[in-house]
């Protein structure tokens, strides 16, 4: 959407996914601990294995198999075919989450708005940091745009899943992560617009 360099974006996302396998549990555990929220380490590690390591391994195996068939389009077609399922999974989870929390929410709908405020501040703030840093570093626009957006957006599916396993389906934590989904989409779309309007801030793409 921002005319970014697709291969480079793929590299970024892939590296970040690999880092996540190792960094997610320690950082999450540390920050929760600092906030006086105690979670069992086993559950945290189990979530990482269950929701990062296993899908990642399966994904890599699938990719490898499809690539070996030498037909390049097969992989693309497969990915395209899978994409809607990702949404189905997300929407299904949302229905369940809110089904479980129905009574809590009806009694305190105001909380959703309260959760949305700091999430908004965070998302916009992080984008500004990343985008201005990219400008300062004089990165070409087709790298700066995707890099800042990757930095800004969250893997909310994982957050939702981990929150459910750690705190339960009808917990406030699960509710907060779902509000995250709600906030993220419109903000990201407007940031894409900002990125496209500020192309002239950056040096033209260097053809590597």
């Amino acid at each position, binding site marked *: 959407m921002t005319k970014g360099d697709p291969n480079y*974006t*793929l*590299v*970024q996302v892939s*590296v*970040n*996914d*690999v*880092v996540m396998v190792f*960094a*997610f549990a320690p950082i999450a555990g540390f*920050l929760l601990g600092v906030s006086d*929220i105690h979670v069992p380490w086993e559950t945290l590690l189990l979530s990482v294995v*269950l*929701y990062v390591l296993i*899908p990642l391994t*399966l994904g890599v195996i699938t990719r490898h198999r499809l690539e070996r068939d030498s037909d390049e389009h097969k992989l693309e077609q497969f990915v395209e075919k*899978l994409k809607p399922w*990702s*949404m189905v999974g997300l*929407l299904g989870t*949302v*229905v*369940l989450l*809110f*089904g479980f*929390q*129905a009574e809590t*929410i*009806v009694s305190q709908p105001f*909380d959703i708005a*309260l959760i949305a405020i*700091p999430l908004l501040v965070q998302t916009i*703030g*992080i984008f500004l940091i*990343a985008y201005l840093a990219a400008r300062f570093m004089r*990165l070409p626009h087709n790298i700066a745009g*995707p*890099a*800042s957006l*990757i*930095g*800004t957006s*969250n*893997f909310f599916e*994982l*957050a939702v899943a981990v*929150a459910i*396993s750690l*705190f339960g*389906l*009808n*917990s*406030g*934590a699960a509710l907060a*992560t779902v509000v*995250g*989904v*709600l906030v993220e989409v419109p903000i*990201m779309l407007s940031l894409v617009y900002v990125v496209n309007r500020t192309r002239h801030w950056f040096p033209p793409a260097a053809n590597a």
Partner: protein
Amino acid sequence: MGIFERYLSVWIGLCIIAGILLGNIAPDFFETIAGFEYAGVNIVVAILVWVMIYPMMVQVDFGAIKEVGKNPRGLWLTLTVNWLIKPFTMAALGWLFFKVLFVPWVDPQSASEYIAGMILLGVAPCTAMVFV
């Protein structure tokens, strides 16, 4: 990006309404689903989450990682933001809003849970390339 993704907020909004309605009309149904649990992991949720995450993981390309050397600066930027800045600002904002600013409106137990949710959001970096 298809109509599905562009209006994701709308779909999510509708699912939220559907969930709340169903949860009030048929609480037994949701209680039954909540019962399908093994070692703290809800089976139905786990399956849905896999359906959600697996398509993204197929896009991860280890072969592409070798290309990192070409332009490492953009990568340093995302790595720094994702792992050194974002999780910590998120935790700090969670604390600031729910332990200081919103104290009159939120009970302490819920506040901690909301902070926990925010922290988990902050630590999970983007894997979807929907927007990029």
